[in-house]
C-alpha cells in the first residue's frame, strides 16, 4: 500500500515525526533554530489539517507501526477527539512558537544578561519541539505502554522547560514538578503492569473489547487514574501547578498551562469513557465530579487572592481543569458520549484562552518588569492589544457567549439539568462568577490611568508578542460561533454521538 496516497493512515505519523526531526535539528544546529521550529510548527499544523480532512473523508483510521498488527504492534489511531486535540495543539503550538520568538528577542535586547537569555532560547526550541512531538504522540497513540513513554517525554521536556528561566524559584518548582510527574508516571506504570498481568494486552482497541471484570483491571484503572490525576493537577493534588506555571518563562507557561495538562487529562478521559466504560461505577463518577467541583471553587478562590498576575492565571488553570471533571458524573445519562463534546469544548476553549492569558502576562511582564496586580495601572494605554486579548480571553474563561467556554458550559449545564443533577449546575455557575471576579480584578487595573502616567519602559514590544495573544483570544471567542465544526469532527465515525442527537447534527 502506498503510504503517500490520500487515504493512507500513515500520514498520521507526520505530526509526531515532523516536530521530532525539528527538535533534533534544533539541537544539532546552532543557527536558524527559530526558522526550523517555525517550519515544523507550520508543517505540523498543515499535517493536522490534512488529518482532519482525512478524518472527515474516510472516518477514523488506524496506523500500525512497522506494519505489525495489534496486539503485538503499536497502533496509532486518529478519531474525532484525537484530531481535535491535535488541532488545538497545532494552532496553539504555532502561536507559541511565534510568541516565543518575540519573547526571547525582546529579552535578548537586554544586553546585561544577553548570554543567559540566548542560552535559554537555544535550549527552548529543541525542548519545545520534542514536547510537541510527545503531545502529538500522546493524542494519537493507541497503546497503553506507548502512552507511558509519551507521558515521560512530556514530563521531562516540560520539567526542563519549566526550569529554563534559571531562577531558584522556578528550578525548585520544576524539581517538584519533575518528582510529581515521576510519581504520576510510576503510578500509571504500575497500573499498566496490573493491566498487562490481567489481560496480557496493551492495545486499547483490543482492551476495550476484552475488558474482563476482574479486580486487577479495576485496580489498574484506579492506579492509572490517580497517576494521571496527579499530572492533571486536580485539587487536592494541584500543589505543584501554580508555582511551576507562574515561575516559568512566559512561553513555557503557555505550553504548560495550555497544552501539557490537557495531555494527561485527555488520556484519563479516554481511559474512562472509551476503554473501561463497563467498569465505571456511578459513585466513582460522582467522586471525580466532586473533586472537579472542589477544584473549580478552590482554584477560583485562590486565584482571587493572588497578588501576581501569573499566579492568578495559574490558579485559574486549576479552577478551569475542574470543569473538565464535572463532565464525569454527567456522562451517565447520555451514555458517555455527549460528554466528549463537553470536554472537548472546555479543553479547546481553555487552551486558547489560557494561552492568550499567559502570553498577555508575559508581555506585561516584559513591559513593566513585574506582574504585581496592584501596580498594573494604566497598562491599557501602552499595551492596547494585549489588554484587549486579556479581556477576550477572560470572557472565554468566564464562559460568556459566544466563546468556546460558553458552549462547554452550556453543554455541562444542559446535561446536569437533564440528568436532574442541578447541584453541578450551581457549582458551574458559581465558578463562572468567581472567574468574573478574578478576571476583572486585573482588568479594572488595566483600565486605571493614573494622572502622572507615562510609558516608562525602554523598548516597545514587538508585534510578535502581542498578536499571537490576540489571535488565540479571538479563536477562543469565535470557536463558540463555529462550534458546529468541532462537533462535526467529533461526530465523524462516532455512531453513538449521532444517536445522542437524534435530530441530526448541524
Amino acid at each position, binding site marked *: 500500500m502506498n503510504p503517500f496516497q490520500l487515504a493512507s493512515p500513515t500520514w498520521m505519523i507526520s505530526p509526531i515525526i515532523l516536530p521530532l526531526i525539528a527538535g533534533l535539528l534544533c539541537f544539532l544546529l546552532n543557527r536558524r533554530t527559530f526558522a526550523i521550529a517555525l517550519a515544523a510548527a507550520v508543517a505540523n499544523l498543515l499535517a493536522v489539517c490534512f488529518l482532519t480532512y482525512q478524518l472527515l473523508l474516510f472516518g477514523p483510521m488506524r496506523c500500525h507501526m512497522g506494519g505489525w498488527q495489534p496486539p503485538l504492534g503499536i497502533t496509532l489511531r486518529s478519531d474525532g477527539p484525537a484530531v481535535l486535540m491535535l488541532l488545538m495543539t497545532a494552532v496553539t503550538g504555532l502561536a507559541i512558537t511565534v510568541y516565543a520568538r518575540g519573547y526571547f528577542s525582546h529579552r535578548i535586547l537586554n544586553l546585561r544578561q544577553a548570554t543567559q537569555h540566548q542560552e535559554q532560547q537555544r535550549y527552548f526550541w529543541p525542548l519545545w519541539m520534542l514536547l510537541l512531538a510527545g503531545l502529538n504522540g500522546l493524542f494519537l497513540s493507541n497503546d497503553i505502554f506507548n502512552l507511558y513513554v509519551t507521558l515521560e517525554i512530556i514530563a521531562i521536556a516540560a520539567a526542563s522547560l519549566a526550569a529554563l528561566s534559571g531562577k531558584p524559584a522556578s528550578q525548585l518548582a520544576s524539581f517538584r514538578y519533575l518528582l510529581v510527574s515521576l*510519581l504520576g508516571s510510576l503510578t500509571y506504570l504500575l497500573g499498566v503492569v496490573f493491566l498487562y498481568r490481567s489481560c496480557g494486552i496493551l492495545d486499547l482497541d483490543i482492551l476495550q473489547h476484552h475488558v474482563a471484570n476482574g479486580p486487577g483491571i479495576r*485496580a489498574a484503572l484506579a492506579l492509572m487514574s*490517580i497517576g494521571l490525576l496527579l499530572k492533571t493537577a486536580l485539587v487536592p*493534588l494541584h*500543589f505543584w501547578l501554580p508555582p511551576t506555571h507562574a515561575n516559568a518563562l512566559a512561553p513555557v507557561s503557555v505550553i504548560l498551562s495550555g497544552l501539557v495538562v490537557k495531555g494527561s487529562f485527555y488520556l484519563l478521559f479516554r481511559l474512562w469513557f472509551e476503554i473501561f466504560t463497563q467498569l465505571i461505577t456511578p459513585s*466513582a463518577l460522582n*467522586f471525580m465530579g466532586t473533586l472537579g467541583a472542589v477544584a473549580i471553587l478552590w482554584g477560583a478562590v485562590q486565584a482571587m*487572592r493572588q497578588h501576581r498576575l501569573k499566579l492568578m492565571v495559574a490558579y485559574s488553570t486549576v479552577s478551569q481543569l475542574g470543569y473538565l471533571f464535572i463532565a464525569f458524573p454527567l456522562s451517565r445519562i447520555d451514555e458517555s458520549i455527549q460528554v466528549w463534546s463537553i470536554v472537548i469544548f472546555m479543553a479547546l476553549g481553555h487552551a486558547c484562552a489560557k494561552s492568550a492569558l499567559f502570553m498577555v502576562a508575559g508581555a506585561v511582564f516584559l513591559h513593566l518588569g513585574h506582574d504585581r496586580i496592584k501596580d498594573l495601572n494604566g497598562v491599557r494605554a501602552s499595551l492596547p492589544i494585549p489588554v484587549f486579548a486579556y479581556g477576550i480571553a477572560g470572557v472565554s474563561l468566564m464562559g460568556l457567549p459566544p466563546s468556546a467556554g460558553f458552549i462547554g458550559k452550556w453543554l455541562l449545564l444542559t446535561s446536569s439539568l437533564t440528568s436532574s443533577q442541578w447541584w453541578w449546575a450551581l457549582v458551574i455557575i458559581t465558578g463562572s462568577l468567581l472567574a468574573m*471576579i478574578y478576571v476583572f480584578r486585573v482588568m479594572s487595573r488595566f483600565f486605571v490611568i493614573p494622572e502622572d502616567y507615562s510609558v516608562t519602559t525602554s523598548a516597545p514590544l514587538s508585534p510578535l508578542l502581542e498578536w499571537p495573544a490576540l489571535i488565540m483570544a479571538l479563536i477562543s471567542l469565535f470557536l463558540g460561533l463555529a462550534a458546529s465544526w468541532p462537533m462535526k469532527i467529533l461526530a465523524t465515525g462516532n455512531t453513538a454521538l449521532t444517536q445522542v442527537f437524534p435530530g441530526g447534527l448541524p
Partner: protein
Amino acid sequence: MTPADLHTILHALTLSLVAGTPLFMAALACTPLQKTVARFLPWAALPAFLAAFTAPANVFVEVPWFFMGSRMGLDENGHIFLCLAAFVWFLASFSSRSLLKDDTKRARFLVFFLTAMAGNFGLILASDMLGYYLFFAVMSFAAYGLVIHKETATAAKAGRIYLTLVMIGEVALFTALIILAHNSGSLAIEDLRGISYHPLTLALLFIGFGVKIGALPLHSWMMPAYQAAPIPAAAALGGAMVNAGILGWLRFLPLGQTSCPTEALFFIVAGALAAVYGVLIGLSHNQAGALLGCSSISQMGLITVIFGLGLLSHEAGLAAAPVLIIYVVHHSLAKSSLFFAYDLAHRQGKTLSYLQMTAILLPALALAGLPLTSGAIAKTAFKDLTIGLGPTWYGLGTFFLPITAIGTTILMLHFMHVLKDNGKRSLPERAESRTIFSISFIAVAITLWLWPAARDSASHSLAGAKILQALWPVTAGSILFFVWRQIPFCNKELSTAQEKQPSFATLLPPIMQLLEEKEWQIPPHDNVNTSLHRLSPHLRRLEKIMGRWKIVGLSYLALCLYLVFLLL
C-alpha cells in the same frame, strides 16, 4: 371641493387658530421678536373672539392624529365660555402690555401668559377628555409661571403652594379620567352620558377641578397666588382660568343625567362652607389681591353649591346648568373687572376719585348681589333654582344666600377700603388701565341684561320683592362693615398671618429619614473583595498546607484507596 368641505376646513382653521395663535406667539416670544410680541399681545385673543362668534355650534372637527385622537368644536356652553375667556384674556393682555414695557423677564412672562391663554382657549374647544386634560394641564402649569413671576419670597411660596395643589389636582384628574375612559370605553365627552359614576370618581373629579376652582380643602393657593401674580395675570387667573374648573365640572360631572344625592350633599356642604370661609378669611387680609382671592373662594363656594344641587337629581341637573352659566358669566366679568380696578388703583398711585370709587362699587357689589346688577340676576337665578328643588333646599336660597351676600358685601367694602389707599407711587399708562377698567365695567353692567339666556332671570330680578330681598343683605353688610371698621382691634394687620400649607415636600422627610442610606451596596474595598481579604491569610495557609509533601502523600493515598474502593 364642495362648499361644505370648504366650510369644514374654515371651521377647523378657525378652531386651530384659537389656541394656535397664542402658542405661536409664545414661540415667537422666545426669539428676539419678543418686543413685537409684547406689542401685539392683545391680538392673541382675537381668534378666540372670532371663533366664539362665528363658529357653528356642535360641529366638531376630528383630529385623529393629534395626541390620542382629538376632537375640537364648540357646544353652547363652549361659545359662552370661550367668549368670556377671550374677553378676560383680551383685557388682561391689554393691561399687561404696559406692564411689560421694561420688564427684564418679559420673554418669560410672555411665554407663560400666552401658553396659559392657549391652554384656556384650547380646553374650551376640546371635546374629548384628553384634549381637555391636555389644555387644562398646559394652562395650570403655565399659570405657575405667572404666579411666581415677581420672584419675591412670597411669590415663591405662593407658587409652591399653587404647584403642589395643581399637581394633586392633575393626578386626581388623571385618575378620574382614566376611570371614566375605562367605564365609557371612549374618549369622547358625550359618551360619558349614561355611564354610572363611582363615588370615588366623583371625589377625584371634585379634587381635580376643585383645585382650580378653589373648593374648600383645596383653596389655599388662591389668596397668595392672586396677590403674588402680576395683576393682569391675576385677572386672567380669577376671571378666566377659574372657569376652566367650572367647565370641567360641567362637562364631566353627571349633571342632569344621574342623581347621586350623597355626593351632591358633599358638594353642597363643601360649597357652603367655602362660601362662608372665604368671607371670614378675607376679613383677616388687607391686600387687595388676596381679598379678591378670598372672594373667589366664597363665590366659587356658591357655584359648588349649585353643582351640588344639580347633582341631586336628573331634573335638578337640567335646571342647574343654565343657572351655573349665568353665575359664571356674572362672576367672571365682575371679578376681572375688580382686578382691573385694582390695577387702576395700583397704577394711579393716588387715592381714587369718587367717580372711580363708585364705578368700582358696581362690580364689587354686583358680587354681593346688589339689585340691578348682574349679581342680582345671578342670585335670582340661584334662588329660583332652590325654589324649584322643593322645600328641602328652599332655605338655602332664602337664608343662606343672603348671609353670603352680607359677607360678600363686607368683604367687598373691605376691598374698596384697601384699594382706596393701596397705590403708593404713580405708574405710567394710567389712561390705558382706565380704558380697560371702563370696558370691563361696561361689560359687567350690561352683559347679563342683554344676554338672551339670562332674560328670564333678569326680568325676575327686577320684581320688587326680589329687589328688596337683594337689597337688604347689601345694606346689612354695609352697616356691619362700618361697625366693624369702628372696632379697633379688628383693624390690626392680620394679613401677614400666612396659612400653613401641608405640601408634599414637608410630608416626606420622615419617609426619607426612614430610607436614608439603607440601600444595599457592596462595601467599598480597594484591592480584593472584603470577605476574601479577610480570608486571604487562611486561604494562603491552607494552600501551603496542601502543598506539603506529607499532605500531598495523604491525599494521594486517600484518593487512590478511595478510587480503588469505588471501582472495585
